[in-house]
Every structure is written in C-alpha cells, then in structure tokens.
C-alpha cells in the first residue's frame, strides 16, 4: 500500500519533469527567434531568399526535403557570416528520434549524425536526473551516470562540464558572454575557440551543406559530425575499391 503510494508520487514527479522541460525548450526557441528578428541576418521567405541568393537563377525546386529532420534559423554570431550575408539554417538534430540517426539522400541512407544526442543518449532529457539541481563536479557519480561519454576534449583543454554546459540548466550551453544557447546552436559555443572553422563553416568551406547549391542553405551543426566530447571522426572501413577496368567477354 505504502509502496504503491511512493510509486504514484514518483510517476507524478516524472510527468511534471518532462512537461516543464518541454515548456523550457519552447521558451528558449521562441527567445532565439525573437532575438533573430532584430538582427540583419534574420530569416526571410524562401522566394526572397532565392532572389537574393543567385545572380539570375531562381530556385526551381524548393520542395527538396530529404529526411524528416527539421531546421532552425541560425543565430547570428559576431564577426563571422556567410558570403554576401546570406542567412542560413542549421539542421535540427532532435526533430524525430526515428530519423535522427540517418538521413536519406536520394537513394542512399547516410548516417549523418555520428552521435545524435537525443537518439543516442539514454539519459535524455537531462532533466530526468538534473531537475532542479546544479551540475556537481568532481563526483564519482558523474562518470557512472555518463558512461557513454568519453571526455577527450575536456581533458585536452582542461575544461570541466560547466565550461560548456550551463550549471543551472544542463540542457543549455553556457557562452562566455553569459548568454545561453540551446543544443541546436552548438556552433555558437564552438565558435568561441574554433573561430576560423566557424568562419569557414558559415561560408561553406567546412561542414556539410544539405539542401542544394541554390536557394535555401541548410547546414549541419558542429555536433552533427563531431562528438563534442571526442571531436575526431572515427576511422572506418571505406566503400569497396575500384576494380581495374579491363576487356571482358560479352558473357552472353
């Protein structure tokens, strides 16, 4: 009887936790958009974008949407921008957990996210544990709870969890300026140190472009390719080697 009551209470807490987390995320997203509206790099309708984009050509096919991932307008970052101040969007990693791990490009399915947070992390959302608590450092429980994280990057740079994660809300990233960025805008955090990569990323020489060379640009965020805790790409076996071309019989 008493045990049952404890269970109910736990369920209630869990429910409250998830709903409040949702509200929180909606809030931050709205905040980001509002902030964008006042900036020069604010999103503009597709047609206007295509016009601004190319000298003569307008985009013929705007309905190119491989995969089910969503996008968010990129927040402007000081000192770097795309060529011609063109606005761009970043692919949203957490749009649909089922498709978050891979994305269909025409006829092939490509694993775009090496470590997609929502799909890969059993502990997501973070508030399931961190609700109302601050990050506790130098505690053995950290390693136990986050076994899937290999902390290569923090060790190399001498950082701690709270160097990048906001101590009071672990689902947000803490920028040096005191601002907070959502997990969809990892580039704002990474660009603080990797500014040359960020500049090339915004201009198109680093990272992937997803939706075509004309019209709307969709970029993948930093954490879509790089595991932030272990940023180097993992080695793998390549696709099969070419066969040397030679004369063959007709075989018929």
């Amino acid at each position, binding site marked *: 009887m008493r045990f049952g009551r404890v269970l109910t209470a736990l369920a209630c807490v869990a429910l409250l936790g998830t709903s409040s987390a949702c509200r929180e995320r909606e809030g931050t997203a709205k905040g980001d958009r509002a902030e964008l509206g006042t900036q020069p790099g604010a999103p503009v309708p597709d047609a206007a974008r295509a016009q601004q984009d190319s000298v003569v050509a307008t985009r013929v096919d705007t309905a190119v949407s491989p995969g089910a991932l969503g996008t968010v307008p990129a927040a402007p970052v000081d000192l770097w921008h795309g*060529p011609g101040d063109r606005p761009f969007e970043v692919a949203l990693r957490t749009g649909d957990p089922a498709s978050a791990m891979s994305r269909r490009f025409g006829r092939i399915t*490509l694993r*775009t996210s090496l470590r997609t947070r929502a799909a890969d992390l059993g502990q997501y959302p973070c508030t399931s544990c961190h609700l109302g608590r601050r990050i506790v450092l130098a505690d053995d429980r950290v390693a136990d709870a986050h076994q899937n994280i290999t902390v290569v990057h923090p060790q190399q740079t001498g950082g701690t969890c709270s160097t990048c994660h906001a101590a009071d809300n672990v689902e947000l990233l803490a920028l040096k300026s005191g601002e907070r960025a959502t997990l969809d805008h990892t580039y704002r955090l990474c660009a603080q140190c990797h500014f040359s990569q960020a500049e090339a990323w915004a201009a198109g020489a680093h990272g992937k*472009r997803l939706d075509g*060379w004309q019209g709307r640009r969709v970029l993948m965020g930093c954490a879509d390719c790089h595991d932030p805790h272990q940023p180097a790409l993992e080695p793998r076996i390549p696709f099969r080697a070419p066969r040397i071309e030679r004369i063959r019989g007709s075989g018929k």
Partner: protein
Amino acid sequence: MTSDPTTEVPRDEAGQTLLQKRVDRRRALGILLGGAAAGTSAVAACAPVSAMTPESKEAKLLAWREYIKGNYRTMTEAERAETIARLERLAELKRGVDVTIQSTGAQPGVVFGYGFNISKCKGFRSCVEACINENNLDRRAATQYIRIFEMEDGVIDFDHADATFQHEVPAEGHFYIGTQCFQCADPPCVKVCPVGATWQEPDGITVVDYDWCIGCRYCMAACPYWARRFNWDEPEVPAAELNTNQHYLGNRARKAGVVEKCHFCIHRTRKGQLPACAEACPTGARVFGNLLDPNSEIRWVLANKRIFRLKEDLKIEPRFWYFTD
C-alpha cells in the same frame, strides 16, 4: 578563373560541321527505307510473324525510330520530347521500369565549379557509393567515375598513390585526394570527338549523347585525367536499384560500346540540388556551386583558401579546385 566560360563560343565547331551535313548516314538509311513507316514493315517482315507479340513489335518499332533519330543538339523541342517518350516507353517494355527522363536545359547565369578539401577527405568513399547509385553505373563491370587516391603526407604524387586501398581509413601518415571529370573549360575530349557526340553545355558540363557516340574512345585517350569510362557491355543495374530520375544527357540507360563520364549530376544540379557525391560526403570535403555567383560557397573557397588544380600547365582550365584548410 582565368577565362570567362560564358563569353566563350562552345567549342564544337568540328561537331557542328559534321552535324550540318544535309544528309547524314542515319537519315539516309531512313530515307532509303522510306522513313519510319516503311521501316516498321521492313522490321516486321524480317521477323517471323508468329514470334512477334504486340509488345516486342512495339519495342522493335521504337528501337528502329531511335536508330534513325538525330544528334541531341540538332533536335527541335518536339523531337526531343518524342525521343524521350520513346526511351521511357522502351524502358517500360524492355525492363518493366517507369523512368522519367528530363531534358532540362542549363540555367542562365550559371557555370558550375567544384572544390575538394584535401584536408578533410578521409577516404571513406561515400561519394563513390552515392555516385554508383545515383548514376546507374554498371554493377557487373563495377564502373566508378570517382577515384580516391591515398597518398603519403608531404607530396602529391599520383605515381606512388594508391587508388585501390581497402583498409580502415584514415591511415596514419596519409591523406586522400579524389578525382573525377573536372568539366574543363577547354575540354580536349570534345575536340577529338569525330562525330560531335560529346560537347560542353552552357553551364560548363561536358555531356555525351549516348545514342550518337560511335565508341571510338578518342575522348578517353585525350582526357588527361582518365575521367571517361567505356561500356564494354550493356550496363547492368538491378531494377530495384535503378534511379528512375534521369536526364537525357546524364544518367539514362547507356548502351554497349559507348563512352560515359561524370556529368556533375546534371539531373540534380540543374534543379538546384547538390551532386550526389557532395551530398553524400560525410566529412564536408566537397564544395559545389555557381562560379558566376559572387556569394557562392565555391567563390568563397577560391577567394579565401589555398587552391590548386591538377595539370594546370595543360591550360585546359579544369573547373575543379583542390584546397586545404
């Protein structure tokens, strides 16, 4: 870019003179046999009547009409639509596949350029896989347009590079560099074609008319980058794996005895999409864009990165630049 490709006259003078002959071989054949209608009866007469199902009869007629059609460049819009309808119907009759063949022309104000980041490429060959699937490359001969070379750090030396590596990549102390058709602004392959079956389009893509090619392979000998491939047999693609989104000058069905090559995914790029290789690259080493748009990604790379091209001394102006971070 040292020359402006848009102001250049397409270099197909040789081809044009050949094409402007009043009566060419195919038309003469057609006239001799009394045009397409007489052709039908001739074909029908040659085959035992009992063996002809309506489908095979239709297929034979269509194949005959295909045989006496002209070069793609000399066709009117109506003729192009007719041949595409015939090719689509033939694909349905022969292979039971429902393909769509485009004849989309070049967009005005667009010349395509390609950038390849040799600091980023890790040799995964995802681009090769995407290219094979996208362009219906022959599975039996294992044709590949793209080659990825593994080279030792420090020097670019294709003589000692390995394009057939098959081990976990990236290998320590090595870097990777990919080649494909570079869509030269002054393509030697076009100059040597004796029949005008290959030419440069206004957006810079060098294409092949597979129904006009005679398979002499002069173009393969002329290409300094080994970018062209010859079909010793009719390419085999399982119907389930066939990409039905096709272009007349791109990835439509090839025949035995004709040359094919990378065409920057003409069926995709002319609609604003990226080529399949650029879209598939998991490292973002491939940059594609419009060279005439000063705000394009490729122009940013050309303006801000250290770039080089292969065999620049040949002065054939490949539109494919390598760069480093």
